[in-house]
């Protein structure tokens, strides 16, 4: 495992990093964003998880609609990241805590850019990250969360990556506190 910088402040450690797993061509954050922009991959995902998609939590929704919603949501996520990185993180009024909204332990959703005209009522994209300082996050991955719990295979995979990343950081002398569990 290694880490790579995604966007880091000039004079501080503020910023977003990501883990890069051995044997993979790119880091986990890049992988996630690329996948969420890929209709073919999304189609495959929703076909595989059709039961969770149609069980009613998100209403009666087709695979096509689910892909469109995901593309819309990741587009808004990208707008938010673009906006924040252009502003910089080293001012008091702009920091990553505005962007990374905590849900549960190490689970976040990206706060949609306030100027966005379209708000998705219920987004399902989740980022998994370890916050090692007020404005410093190491992303371990992301997922489409169709269920309230973490039972899905793809979600369990995210939890495993989180644990691996925590071990890696601790072994390399980087300490962090476990986030408080917030039940949504």
């Amino acid at each position, binding site marked *: 495992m*290694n880490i*790579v910088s995604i*966007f880091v402040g000039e004079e501080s450690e503020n910023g977003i*990093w*990501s883990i890069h797993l051995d044997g993979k061509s790119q880091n986990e954050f890049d992988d996630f*964003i690329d996948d969420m922009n890929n*209709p073919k991959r999304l189609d495959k995902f929703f076909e595989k998880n059709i039961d969770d998609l149609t069980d009613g939590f998100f209403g009666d929704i087709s695979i096509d609609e689910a892909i*469109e919603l995901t593309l819309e949501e990741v*587009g808004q996520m990208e707008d938010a990241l673009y906006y924040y990185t252009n502003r910089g993180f080293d001012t008091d009024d702009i920091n990553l805590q505005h962007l990374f909204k905590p849900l549960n332990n190490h689970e976040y959703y990206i706060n949609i850019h306030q100027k966005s005209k379209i708000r998705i009522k219920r987004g399902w994209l989740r980022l998994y990250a370890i916050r090692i300082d007020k404005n410093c996050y190491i992303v371990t991955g992301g997922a489409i969360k169709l269920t309230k719990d973490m039972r899905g295979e793809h979600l369990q995979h995210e939890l495993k990556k989180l644990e691996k990343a925590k071990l890696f950081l601790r072994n390399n002398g980087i300490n962090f506190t476990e986030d408080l569990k917030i039940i949504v």
Partner: protein
Amino acid sequence: MNNLREKLMSLSGGKKSDLMEKIKYRVENRAWLRKSSAIAILVLSTLRAKKLTQAQLSERMGVSPQQVNKILQGQENLTLETIEKLETALDIRIIDVRSDNNKPSGKKKPAA
């Protein structure tokens, strides 16, 4: 604080992702990329409805499977020729340009 930065920089070996450049590109080209994605979704949906494989689609279109794969990833700036091949292969309408709806007066005739 700087100690943490040094540790992270050292661990990363200075490696930097180009994700923000990719995001900038997508933000700046959002309009046509959306259309490319919409076409990909339509094609995927049609393949599912007609129980066709990507390989069968590539045969019908007379293009390589790799090209079909690219189309379905929704990032291609498709040519009109490719769109026409998709329409013919799948018997669907992707774009519909009617000359009588594009008069300079701005008034559109109702569709026939």
